[in-house]
Every structure is written in C-alpha cells, then in structure tokens.
C-alpha cells in the first residue's frame, strides 16, 4: 500500500456509511461475504476505492487487505482511481455493436480527445470525463445503450450522445450527479 500514514489518518468513513455496513454484516453468516457489498458502498461514497478504503474494509471485516484487494482487481466495476465527474460506460457487446455502439464510442472519444482504439477506462486530463467500453448490459433490445454515471440511456445515436455531452459540458456544479447506491 502506497499511502503515507497521514493520508490514512485523513480517511474517515461517516457514521451512516459505517452503519450501512454494520447492517450488511447481519445479512451473512460470515463477515467475509460483506466485502463485495462494502466495496460498492465505499465506491459509491468516495467515488473510487483507495488503499485506505481497502484497509478500512479489511479491518472492519477481519480480513487481510489482500483479500479485499483481490476482489477490487477482479471486478471491472471498481476503480482504484477517482473517476471523472461524468462517467460514460458504453456497451460494446454484440447486439449493441450490430446497432452501432462503436460509432457512439468513437464520437465520444473524439469529442473528448481520448483514444478511440483503447477500450479500457480513460479519463480526460482535466479529470472531468471518464469513458469506457463495458460488456452487455442486458438491455440488448434497446441498443446501443450506455450508462452516464448511474443513469441508463437507450437507443443512442451519435446525435443523442453529443447532446448528452453538451448537457455535461454546461454543468459546472462540483458534485457528481447520479451517483448513489
């Protein structure tokens, strides 16, 4: 773990979040089972999973930090770095691809100055936008589909995705919209 002690000290989990996790502990016969849901809760609150967050979960659930980290690195939905305020997840899989999801992805990447040939998560240098291709979102009849943060958008076209981008660009508030559990 790379963070200095002082950074770990700064990390604090609010009471509401901790009680949410305490409640989750009652759902399972074994504490270890809570790890995944706890990671969701922390990512929803902090926007990403930090080293300190991993340490905190490990301690809370009597696990080694490694046991927590190995889940973070396995599951695509977790991020070890802060994500952009606007996070686009575009479905790449067959039914969406047959209906042009690649064009949507390319349009987004081009307008944001990101590399359209990279399918992995990319964030703009100003940290405002994160774009990534994800796999089938189980809404194949409405493809191409995408998530903008936690909001789902269906039947996307190059025009509609540009419109979404315009709305994002006009949004100067500092809080990240659409997050939450």
């Amino acid at each position, binding site marked *: 773990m790379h963070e200095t002690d002082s950074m770990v000290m700064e990390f604090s989990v609010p009471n509401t979040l901790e009680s949410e996790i305490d409640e989750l502990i009652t*759902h*399972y*016969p*074994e*504490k*270890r*089972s*809570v*790890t*995944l*849901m706890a*990671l*969701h809760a922390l990512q929803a609150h902090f926007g990403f999973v930090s080293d300190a967050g991993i340490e905190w979960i490990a301690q809370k*659930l009597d*696990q080694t930090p490694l*046991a927590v980290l*190995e*889940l973070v690195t*396995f*599951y*695509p*939905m*977790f991020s070890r770095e802060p994500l952009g305020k606007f996070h686009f997840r575009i479905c*790449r*899989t*067959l*039914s969406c*691809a*047959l*209906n042009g999801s690649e064009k949507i992805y390319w349009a987004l990447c081009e307008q944001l100055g990101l590399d359209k040939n990279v*399918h992995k998560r990319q964030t703009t240098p100003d940290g405002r936008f994160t774009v990534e291709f*994800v*796999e*089938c*979102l*189980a*809404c*194949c*009849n*409405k*493809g191409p589909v995408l*998530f903008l943060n*936690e909001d*789902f958008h269906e039947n996307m076209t190059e025009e509609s995705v540009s419109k979404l981008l315009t709305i994002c660009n006009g949004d100067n508030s500092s809080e990240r919209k659409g997050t939450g*559990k």
Partner: protein
Amino acid sequence: MPQKNRLILKNLDNKDYNNTLSCYLEEGGYETLKKALSLKEKTTQDGKKLSPQQQLRDEVKASGLRGRGGAGFSTGLKWSFVNRASGKPIYLVCNCDESEPGTFKDRQIVHKDPHQLIEGMIISCFANDVHLAYIYIRGEFNEGAKILNRALDEARSRNLLGKNILDSGYDLEIYIHRGAGAYICGEETGALSSLEGYRPQPRLKPPYFPAALGLYMCPTIVNNVETLCAVKHVIEIGASQYAKLGIPSDPGTRIVGVSGQVRNPGYFEVEIGKITLGQIINDLAGGPRSGRQIKAIIPGGSSSKVLRADEKVTLKTKNPDGTFSEKVVDVFDLPYDSDSIAAAGSMSGSGGIVVIDDSTSMVEVAANVSEFYVHESCGQCTPCREGTRWMSKILKRILAGNGRRADVDELARISQNIMNGRSLCAFGEAASWPIESYVLKFRDEFLALCAAAEDSRKEIWGEAGINRFA
C-alpha cells in the same frame, strides 16, 4: 397469437400496472404463497406421509419445468439432488446475474414485477426448507437492486417475509447481493464464491456440486429469476395444467428476447415448441430491416452456436407407435424448444436470439464475441485464459488486413482445444462454441479476407509474405 400466452409477463407491461406491492396484490399476488403455506400433510395410498414441502417439490418435478438460465436442466430434479440429511442449513440463491449477451428477460421481471420473483422465491424456499436466501444481482442492475430492496421491504412489512410468515410458523429472509461486472458470476459456483467474498472463480464439479457442497459448503439451490417465477405458476395452476403448455420434453412458456438487426427487437413470452424460430423473428420481432436479408441467427445467447439462415435441419419426431420419423425443415421452421434447437446443433440457452443480417461481416461478429470472452475469462484454466486471447488476437489480425489462409483452420483448432471439458467450468465451451461455429459455417467469409491479405503480401515479398505482417 402465440405471444398472447403470457403467464410471467401477464401484467407487467399493462398500462395501469406498476411494481408496487399493492398493484401485485390487486392482481392476486401472493395468493399462491398462501396456498402453498396452508398445504396439509397428505397420506398416499400406500400409507406414505407427504409433507407440504414434499408435495410442492413433487409438483415442480411433475411439471417437467426446465431451468431458464441457460443449461435447461430439470428444476425438480435439481431440487431432488439437495442433500437434506446433512444437518446443515440449505440455501437458495436466485441467479439474477443476467449477463449472457443477447439476454434481457430477467431485467423486465426485476424492474416491472419484482414481487412475482419474490413470491416464486418464497414458495421455492419453503418447499426446500430454506430459511436464508440471496438474490445475486449483477452490479450494473443498480436500479433493479433498488427496486428489489424496496419490494423486499414491502414484503417484510406485510409479514410475507421474516419470522413466522403469515402465521405459518415458517421463517425466511432474503437479501440482495450485488455483483460488480463479472460475467463469470452467472456460473452457479462462481456466484457462490462471490457470495462468500472470494474471487468469483467457479469450483470443480465434482465435488463441489451446489446441491451438496454449495454456499459455505452447505447444500444450495441456484435457480434463475425466470425459473423461480415459473415455479410460482406451476404451483398456482398445478403441474398437470402447466405441463399442458409447451411440449412434453420442455413444458411451459418462456421469455425469448430478440435483438440485433431486426425491426422490432423485444421480449416475448411464448409457449415452448409451439412457435417457430421464424415466427419469433419475423412475426414478433418484425423481421429483417428494409432491404436486408437475415444471414445468421444466434438462437440462445452469444454462447450458442450460430445457425445459417439457409440451413436445413433434420428433426426426429416420435410417432404414436413408438417409431421415429425424420423430417427436414428450414431453420426458420424450427420449433423453438430445447430439443429442436439442439437437433440443429445449437441450444436455446438463455432464450436470447440475436439476428444478423447481410450487411454484417461474420468475421466482425466473431471478433466482437471473442473479445467478450477474453474479457470475461476468470483466468483459472489455461486453455480458457490463453485460448480466448489467441483467438481474439487472430481475429483482430484478420480484420486489420493481416490474415493468413491458415488462420481459418487455426481458429477451429484452438476452439477444439478449449472445449470438450478441458476447462474447469462451462465457460470454455461458451467461449469456443460460437467462434468455431462462425468459422465452420461462414468459412468463405473468413477465407476471402485471409486470402486477399495473404496474396497481396505475397505479391510484394513472395512466399515469405505469408507470415510477414504490415
């Protein structure tokens, strides 16, 4: 019209229907649960005592219901494998990981009629002496998880869940467990590993059959969302009524989803085997787009082998006198049921039909599907982890104009080395069946691309050009 045969989808798209408990109750919701909970012990003619639980399990078995998650295994049989003598608790896990590309049926139930799933779950749990159950829901169903959580709370507030449900003396809790974007969690033992807080790597069978050594090494039932809803209908109308729907080897109704290049992609509940693939695609989903022709059909999720639109299939049917007769039908005239699609060499799997028209290159389809399996291999087995990558690399190379004639057979060879039980779970088959089938059935498309590229390199470099890529 076949699509009017709605059991599970009966209410959920009605204008005045929403996903609240009050709406569900108005439509007779939870009446089947009441019926199940009030069953009395029965004595058979030969003096055997049948507990209410046993009666429910017998009913499900008699209905012939097959699982709707993809494997199509008999639900009653699955339940009968549960080790009830171990003294350990029995768990039930609802598989709501819906991740098979082309599949979007469970999402409809969760979003629009969550109480139907919960009722089906409570009945199934009661029938199997389960007191703690989980809904394993894929992480991207954030909205679905919220809806289910609210529905579970509603159910608790009416004593449909919790202690002493409806004064029957039966206790049950159901909790939501969210995945986080990994397809392998749809594999039942992968889901169990995930629930235990480990990496969701599938477990070897034997010995880790969930029915004996499942969640926390206790006997566990893993059933798909649609299957659990179907259980509710089996109990509601009775096994004999239910079995009248569909065909004897695959009774009931199921929800099929049509996506890809059709006019009206969507989901439709159909009577199994009473409707053809062609009727589903052309009548229900509107057929090909204008000016287009259907070239290929993926009949049951992206893991199923592709069917050519011009393919002929030999169907065997059993005559009343016990003999068999054969008939040859067009792919579009194939009845949609497990056996008929299996006769065509593929599977009806998760019911996700993906239609591909003549504007699309099958090499691109192969590259797309192959990239999915690269991303989703859990990494435990070498054939699967490495093989999927090799195939994807070759396919991308072909698409980039660097193919070789030999690549076509090489793809088929690699597929063969991943499937046939060489991987720990069925993912190996799921990843290689489709690619092999594209290569075998659309060989000319692959070969044309490869040959053109190889020849143009040969023109510059001679024989050495075969392996010299730009």
